[in-house]
């Protein structure tokens, strides 16, 4: 499966009906909310797409219709835009266990980027671990998705998570306020509440997507175990029984509730997604419920 595409075409077609949704009005946006992103007349031609019910008939390419007997909609570039910034966690903890979180975060990021691209949003993908890594900016329609997919596929996991340092770098590099999507397991040895609060305090709208594997929340082991932390390499020799596993899950749920509280406190959105959930269910389930996409 090394050559398998990040996201298959059928799934991408389903994503075309979605929109990344945010609530705040940021400087630079036309209209201050998502609906203002629709192309207007007289703008620079950008792309064609299939006509969907409800589209403006004035944008239909009637010449193409006469030739092909199909209705295509002309799309136009609207500038300037405040980009959607997506911070994706590529630390070693994301690849712990079977590596499910790392695969999931790449696919989820790809899916959200495609949603944005279809709606002509400009999205900046910024991987991070100990520090902010070189990102990838994409925008201008769905045909720009392939370079982004390659970028996501080439990502490597590693390093320890340092949210505070990453947020500081981010705020320095990107002072313009906007929607910040953070996709991570939020497992930082020093905690991430303070860093996330910084992001919100600087006027960014937070969309926090917490990923966890089944082992992260409900460890299946029984008896004596040597546990090795993926990022720090720290070891713990422990005896695990049903009671210990229950308390562990309880602690994990408390931690997830803390992340959620940060998002809610700052008028942001939160979605907790186990990696055992199919990606399609995650987007059309958890993310729709949290109104991260609409």
């Amino acid at each position, binding site marked *: 499966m090394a050559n398998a595409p990040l996201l298959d075409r059928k799934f991408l077609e389903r994503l075309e009906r979605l929109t990344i949704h945010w609530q705040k009005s940021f400087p630079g946006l036309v209209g201050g909310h998502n609906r203002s992103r629709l192309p207007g007349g007289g703008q620079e031609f950008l792309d064609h797409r299939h006509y969907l019910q409800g589209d403006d008939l004035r944008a239909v390419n009637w010449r193409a219709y006469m030739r092909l007997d199909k209705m295509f909609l002309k799309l136009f570039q609207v500038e300037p835009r405040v980009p959607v910034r997506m911070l994706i966690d590529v630390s070693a903890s994301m690849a712990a266990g079977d590596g499910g979180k790392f695969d999931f975060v790449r696919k989820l990021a790809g899916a959200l980027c495609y949603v944005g691209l279809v709606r002509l949003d400009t999205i900046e993908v910024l991987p991070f671990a100990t520090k902010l890594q070189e990102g990838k900016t994409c925008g201008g329609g769905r045909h720009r998705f392939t370079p982004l997919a390659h970028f996501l596929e080439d990502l490597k996991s590693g390093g320890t998570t340092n949210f505070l340092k990453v947020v500081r770098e981010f705020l320095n590099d990107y002072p313009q306020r906007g929607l910040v999507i953070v996709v991570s397991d939020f497992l930082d040895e020093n905690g991430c509440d303070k860093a996330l609060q910084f992001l919100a305090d600087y006027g960014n709208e937070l969309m926090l997507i917490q990923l966890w594997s089944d*082992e992260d929340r*409900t460890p299946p082991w029984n008896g004596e175990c040597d546990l090795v932390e993926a990022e720090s390499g720290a070891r713990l020799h422990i005896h695990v029984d049903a009671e210990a596993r229950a308390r562990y899950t309880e602690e994990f749920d408390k931690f997830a509730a803390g992340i959620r509280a940060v998002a809610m406190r700052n008028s942001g959105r939160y979605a907790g997604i186990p990696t055992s959930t199919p990606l399609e269910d995650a987007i059309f389930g958890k993310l729709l*419920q949290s109104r991260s996409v609409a």
Partner: protein
Amino acid sequence: MFLNLNLGEFLAIFGGIGVVTIALYLLDRTRRRQVVSTLRFWVTPGLPSPVTRRRKIQQPISLLLQLLGMLLLLLAVAELHWGGSASGARRDHVLIIDTSAWMRAGAPGRPNGTLMDLARANAISWLRAVPESDRVLLLRADALATPATSWESNHVKVARAILETKPGATAINLTQSIEFARQLQKQTGSVGGEIVYDGPGRISAAEGDAGSTVNVPILRYLQVADPSENVGLRNVGARRSSAARDSWDVLVRVRNYGKIARTVNVTLNLGHAPVGLHSLTIPPSDDQETTFPVHTKAAGLLEVRIYPQDAFAADNYASLELPAQRSLHVVVYSDSPEEWKPALEADPRVVPEFRRKAEYTPANDGLVILDRFRPEPAPAGNVLWVDPPEKSPISIRERVGEPTGLRWAPDQALSAGLREHDLQIPSTAILETGTNDIKVAEVDRGPVIAARVIDDGKGKIARIIVMGFNPFAGSLRYELAAPLLLANELRWFAPEVFRDVDVAAQSAGTVSDSFNAPANGDVQVVTDAGTNLPFNLHDGKIQFFTGEAARVNVISANAERVYSLTLPEMWDRKWTPPAGVRRGIPAWNDSIRRGTDLWPWLALLGAALLLLEYLLYGREMSALLRVVRAHMERAGDAAGAGGRAA
């Protein structure tokens, strides 16, 4: 008690299972290394502190539950049975039913019943007493022990096989049958039951002399009462009389198996015509022989009967098929027939006819001997040329007087037994032999006796012998080599006439008879059906075996024996059962019914314990519970989102 396993097997299996379970348990519970995303939730206060000492068994209750569950399941497999006597355990029995020839004898006190009927009744009674869960194997035993059924829990099949059992033609080999039954029981691997012998217990002398003791843990003897008095034919033999032409000597041997002396009449019929009657008084447990001369040249059925009839009719009658006696017609053309007469008239199978040379005719229905005579035309067929004066069929190179260096061909039937090298031959012709000619005798100058086989290509074979000298002329007639050479030549011309024929009627089973094996080892043992029987030639005897009545021919180059194995093979003595043998019909069913089967309850309890252990400690169930819990949470989240949207 265990019905399906003995205690040793049970302990061995449970020990093995226990060891494997504990090993797997320890392996499953061994400390394993896991790479995790974070340790922060494990070191939270309230969670178990890290351990420093490795404990071998962390969950002893889990292990105990597993072991207890398996113990109960194994007890169920072993079919633990509560109550009842030890004899009620399910076992494998072997029923040996006697199918020897003696089982044809009439049962005492039953005008139309036989010993076989009594044995069947005994076997059915015993089978009814066997618990339904026991398995039974029926063994039909005569000279060979043959299983009639497999190990059957379905006793109806065994009963059907018992009713289909018929007497054979041989005597029982009881020791071998019981040993075979013991081996069958050992092979099953289950609890051994009884070995039951059902019969009168009459064995052969060979088995009784062997004195082998039967070492069987549980042997039951269902004795069949049999008649004590019997007189029967032991064997009947017919051989060509050496004294008279066209005559047979018939030897009849009769045995009295009873305990009192008996007088019987032995009658001999040939072609349904009586040819002899002898009266014999035979002491108890003894044999007597009598000989009947029978004059006949033709083939015929020879029947031997003894009177009065007794309880066992099968050995009161025997029949033989006498073959026709063949002879060789020899016509001798000689000026001195007196030289040939003594040699040719000595054998009753040779019919000589002496003619003068003037009476010559080319007709030849056997053999023509031309003594220093060369007729025109030469006779066809088998011809013995003696010193032919001219136009010899094997050309004559020269004639010499008093030749030296006489040698006989060492590997020819024509020179068999001839060793004399100092034979004084007055004069002889030296022959010019071809490559296919048989050189019988040679001198320094060349061959003096040669034979030739002439095939006319139409299936007719003619044999000729040319002798360079007359072996009966002058002083040569007094030499042993002369008649021996003529006998060899006559046997070579007509081997079927001179083949010794013996006919015997005796019992089936193992046949062991004296036999002079030919030098070339060419012996055939065939039945009337054309089946070749395996045989053994050892120490001047031929041995072969047939389990049923048959007619067997033993054919070699010089002799033919016809065994009419129609007489039943009889017993010689009464079997003495070993000490401690059980007798009569047992009463098992009552004891087995008093017990209670526990295995269903044990199986249920064992399964329940294993299920309980699985629910409490099983990993897979924990994973299942996690999935169920995840679905419940998802449903809860969806309901919450719906509530918030509302």
